């Protein structure tokens, strides 16, 4: 899990930050030391773990640093440019920047780029690139112009690609963006146009890039608040043909920040990005870590005093200006082990049902997309648009287009046809797409709810919660308890919050009413609560209470509700995540559920095997776990309710009596064993016998 640790500030020397914040934060040749260049005249060397400056250098009054200071990792010298053209080189021992080595260049420098393992590069504003050594040998050499007029460099980054340095820089001209990639083993410059797609009007606010095998994965944060990714090949397919190539942007994360403010983006590792900016237009600025693979927000930290919209990331530290103070937030992303993340699994499979694949094969579903797309393009992760990408799967495509327009009845017929076709390896993703397609229409058309089709799809045993995230929410919205029950029985990965929402609904009055109204409808839909396995026990049990007066032995809920609650009891959960949600359930519902659980517990204890009758009943462990969970979450509430008091008392008495029985059993165990021994001796009394044996 990604985690942000306690922040700390680097102070000591006041930073002359301008309206645009700092010029830059750069790594040094020694770990833990960073060069901070403010937008005025000062360069400060910080040791981050000690939170103190090691050195500070300023240029003369009247001069302005125009390019952040960097460290030459090969020599240990620091390099800075002031007044666009004057290069200064110095070391730790130097005190006055005026007296250090100076070289005046013939063109304006955009940035000096330095990374460990290679010599620094100087990128000029006109797009030309020189190695530092070559430049110092002849400072006044002529610098050619690479980019056109009015084209302005916006951002640049320097990589090592298989031990060869490679440089990428982005230019902008009239709202069009171009990427230049220069490799220094071949000294070829490739130019690409970034196609912005539909979001033509947006302005790119921040760039970040990382290496991803043979591509540079360029991420950009647009003013619409979305993060896009473009893959730029490092090795151009045709280096000779130096024509302008196009690079498509694909949406990676949607609306992570509100677009109006100054936002920043930095890639942390292959699955995580850090985003700086307000998540909502009105809210304060936040530092958020997003997982791009699962599109989830991992952690977020509010920065109430505002930032300069700049973010640097080195090693394990995120640097930003918080107010006027340079703040460091250590960031850690540990790969969590599966064992630690696992909660309680489903109790077991229905013997009759087909085993469903619990885990989606990510490789397979990703490979499916990349087969059809060109290498430079990258398809969106959202499957909605897959219809256009997969021309050779006409059946599912057809169905998806049917879903968009046709009536429920027609969709149902088409779906039945589709399901009759032989299953392909990516069957589960296709089914997931269909469900998402259906749900998409549900959202746009409130009257559209293709219940039968969805039921049919869920019953294919291939869906999981993560394949169709919206399904249960829609069912909750429509109070479709049968659908929820089916989902609870089928899906292995329902979040605890949704399980709890289901529980809440099952306990609420909605269930009762519906039963009265839709009894016939339910039967028509192929769902018969009377047939449900869990009901068998309840039905059988419900015969008893007529002749017994004692209240505890009668089932406190109607059979239908019991069947629904049993589905909840069977679902998988992790205690830590479930407990907070359980607290939201109203007290009288908690009491009702406890009554039902107590009733099940009593029924369990009645049989010698400690199991309930029926085909797939809740186990004693599940019942006990849920009783404990409910009491853990709501004990203080329940204990105050008068009607729950008697229940708690009888529960307490019953548990106590069970403990008594166990201890008594322990006491007489010795006697049991003696009896067993006697029995054994009787069997083995015959030490010698003569028998007849026939071999065949």
């Amino acid at each position: 899990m990604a985690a942000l640790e306690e922040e700390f500030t680097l102070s000591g020397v006041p930073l002359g930050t301008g309206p645009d914040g700092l010029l830059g934060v750069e790594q040094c040749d020694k770990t833990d030391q960073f060069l901070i260049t403010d937008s005025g005249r000062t360069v400060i060397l910080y040791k981050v773990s000690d939170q103190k400056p090691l050195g500070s250098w300023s240029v003369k009054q009247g001069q302005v640093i125009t390019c952040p200071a960097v460290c030459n990792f090969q020599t240990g010298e620091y390099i800075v440019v002031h007044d666009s053209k004057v290069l200064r080189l110095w070391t730790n021992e130097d005190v006055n920047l005026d007296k250090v080595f100076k070289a005046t260049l013939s063109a304006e420098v955009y940035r000096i780029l330095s990374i460990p393992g290679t010599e620094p590069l100087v990128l000029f504003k006109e797009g030309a690139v020189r190695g530092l050594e070559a430049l110092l040998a002849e400072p006044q050499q002529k610098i050619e112009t690479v980019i056109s007029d009015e084209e302005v460099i916006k951002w640049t980054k320097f990589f090592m690609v298989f031990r060869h340095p490679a440089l990428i820089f982005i230019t902008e001209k009239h709202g069009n963006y171009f990427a230049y990639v220069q490799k220094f083993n071949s000294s070829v410059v490739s130019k690409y146009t970034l196609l912005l797609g539909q979001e033509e009007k947006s302005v790119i606010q921040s760039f970040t890039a990382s290496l991803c095998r043979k591509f540079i994965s360029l991420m950009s944060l647009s003013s619409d608040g979305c993060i896009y990714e473009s893959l730029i090949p490092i090795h151009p397919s045709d280096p000779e043909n130096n024509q302008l190539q196009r690079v498509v942007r694909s949406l990676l994360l949607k609306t992570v920040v509100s677009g109006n403010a100054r936002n920043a983006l930095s890639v942390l590792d292959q699955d995580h990005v850090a985003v700086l900016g307000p998540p909502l237009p009105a809210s304060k600025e936040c530092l958020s870590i997003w997982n791009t693979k699962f599109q989830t927000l991992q952690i977020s930290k509010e920065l109430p005093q505002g930032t300069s919209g700049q973010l640097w990331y080195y090693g394990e530290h995120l640097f930003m200006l918080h107010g006027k103070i340079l703040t460091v937030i250590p960031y850690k992303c540990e790969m969590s082990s599966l064992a630690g993340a696992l909660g309680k699994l489903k109790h077991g499979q229905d013997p009759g049902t087909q085993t469903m694949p619990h885990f989606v094969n990510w490789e397979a579903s990703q490979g499916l997309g990349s087969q059809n797309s060109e290498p430079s393009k990258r398809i969106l992760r959202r499957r909605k648009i897959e219809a256009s990408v997969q021309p050779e799967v006409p059946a599912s495509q057809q169905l998806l287009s049917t879903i968009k327009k046709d009536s429920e009845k027609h969709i149902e017929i088409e779906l039945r046809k589709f399901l009759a076709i032989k299953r392909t390896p990516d069957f589960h993703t296709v089914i997931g797409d269909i469900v998402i397609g259906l749900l998409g229409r549900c959202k746009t058309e409130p009257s559209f709810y293709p219940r039968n089709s969805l039921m049919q799809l869920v019953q294919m045993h291939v869906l999981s919660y993560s394949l169709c995230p919206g399904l249960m929410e829609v069912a909750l919205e429509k109070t479709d308890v049968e659908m929820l029950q089916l989902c609870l029985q089928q899906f292995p990965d329902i979040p605890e919050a949704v399980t709890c929402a289901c529980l809440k609904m099952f306990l609420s009055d909605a269930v009762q009413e519906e039963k009265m109204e839709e009894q016939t409808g339910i039967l028509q839909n192929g769902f018969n609560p009377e047939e449900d396995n869990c009901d068998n026990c309840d039905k059988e049990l419900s015969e008893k209470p007529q002749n017994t007066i004692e209240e505890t032995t009668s089932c406190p809920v109607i059979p239908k509700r019991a069947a629904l609650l049993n589905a909840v009891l069977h679902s998988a959960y992790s205690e830590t995540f479930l407990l907070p949600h359980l607290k939201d359930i109203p007290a009288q519902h908690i009491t009702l559920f406890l009554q039902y659980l107590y009733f099940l517990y009593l029924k369990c204890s009645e049989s010698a095997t400690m199991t309930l009758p029926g085909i797939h009943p809740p186990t004693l462990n599940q019942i006990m776990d849920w009783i404990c969970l409910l009491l853990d979450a709501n004990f203080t509430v329940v204990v105050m309710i008068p009607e729950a008091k008697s229940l708690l008392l009888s529960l307490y008495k019953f548990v106590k009596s069970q403990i008594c029985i166990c201890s008594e059993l322990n006491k007489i165990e010795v006697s049991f064993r003696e009896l067993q021994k006697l029995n054994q001796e009787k069997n083995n009394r015959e030490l010698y016998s003569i028998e007849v044996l026939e071999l065949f």
Partner: protein
Amino acid sequence: MGEFKVHRVRFFNYVPSGIRCVAYNNQSNRLAVSRTDGTVEIYNLSANYFQEKFFPGHESRATEALCWAKGQRLFSAGLNGEIIEYDLQALNIKYSMDAFGGPIWSMAASPSGSQLLVGCEDGSVKLFQINPDKIQFERNFDRQKSRILSLSWHPSGTHIAAGSIDCISVFDVKSGSAIHKMHVDRQYMGVSKRKCIIWGVAFLSDGTVISVDSAGKVQFWDSATGTLVKTHLVANADVQSIAVSDQEDSFVVGTAEGTVFHFQLVSVTSNSSEKQWVRTKPFQHHTHDVRTVAHSPTALISGGTDTHLVIRPLMEKVEVKNYDAALRKITFPHRRLISCSKKRQLLLFQFSHHLDLWRLGSTVATGKHGDTLPLSKDADHLLHLKTKVSKMPAFLRSAVQILFSEDSTKLFVASNQGSLHIFRLLEGSFKHLHTFQAQSGTVESMCLLAVSPDGNWLAASGTSAGVHVYNVKRLKLHCTVPAYNFPVTALAIAPKTNNLVIAHSDQQIFEYSIPDKQYTEWSRTIQKQGFHYLWLQRDTPITHISFHPKRPMHILLHDAYMFCIIDKSLPLPNDKTLLYNPLPPTNESDVIRRRTAHAFKISKRYKPLLFMDLLDERTLVAVERPLDDIIAQLPPPIKKKKFGT
């Protein structure tokens, strides 16, 4: 096939001794096991876990420690204060040497194998040099207050850890002085016990010392600082043994509750280099104390008071998931403890220190399959013979195996050094006739003997060299059966045909014609076709082979869980046919029965089967030893609550 009257004998009151120590030898893949009566057994794990060697114990020798050193040399030490080296070729004790420190509780060979360390009752740790012929005392380490119960060398050989009562000492081998003394908490679940006994220590190459103690703790210590690093409470009773794998990535501990716990060094999180010891798997294959454990590269080995030797392969280490990956539980010795006089209907039972002679009963009734017949005469216990050393010729002192000829006129004795003696038995005395000397260059003792019913041929087999056949009339070596990779588990020579039938530990059976000096046609056929896979998957060796007096085509053999009559005239089973004929056919016509019939007639009715033989053509004797009867004679296990928490 035939109907037999079976004398089902369960009065063989054999109780194996509890296992005290196991020592695994990685080089030869052999396992040495010592039992509480001082018996030492050698198991060949490569040869289907066959118990190939055996050193009988003695009342005065209680083994407390066992270890391999210098590759293939085996040492034991015990409460009589002596260190013993075993001669693995001649199968006798090479020498014993008093350590002069009182009873010895622990022993460990140095990682290089050149030094031996023993921990004694008087608190001393003594270092011995292992010389090619003997061991030599070198020096004492600093004496501790109480007995040294466990010892472990640091893999570099520079330091040792010694577990005593209430404390663990770390010694520097060069100086012999204790550099750290780590005191172990006596507290057990908040209750202060009288003493905390360190049953086992293990010294890892990173300087960690792992200790197991009587308070149920597994503790990790830093030997450099002498501090406790981590504690795992694994049992409510003593943790009695520990063994670490060679890679030091896993170890195993055995508790007095019969549980074996596997600990593994696993990454805290995936991809991280930080690792920690985690208790991964519990195994409950024992009912009583697990006195000792060993860790082979692929398996956990444990043994204890309940007399079972359990070999539990680690599934993640086993490459091929075949039958070898199955759990092995070895309870009975892989040799015959019973002999039978067919004519007189007598059974002789061999115990570790005495012999019992019984006469079988009889019946006049007849019945059908499955009936138990009324006895007209019950079995009688005739004799109880205790060991008594009388005057014997010097060369006869250590007989590994003895055998009488069929007509009881000759006695064949396999002594150590590989020689075979022949005696003529006279009224009240005997006369030495001849000695077959060992083949030049070998000193391996012959463990198995077989004589032909006509008395002309004698077959003898050691553990590794092939089977030798001697001509008794001419007193010379007749031939040697081609050597085979796996040790011989049973031998017999058929009457009339003089075919030698040999069973090997990999469940192969060969038939070798002695007069023709070659394998018989049937043997070649079955080798060509191969045995049924279920036959090869049996996990106990064949311990006895005999023949039907009237039907030369029949061979009777048995292991601990089945007996089988092979009818060589019938077709051989292939992997598709049913090997074990389950039930007698009731309504089937003769045709079907004949079509499905194959050569292996197997019955699993009697088990565990220690002996089975034909008394006459219609009578069998089967000696069973039910496990319940053995368990009933063991001390009660630690009581565990069955109900509630």
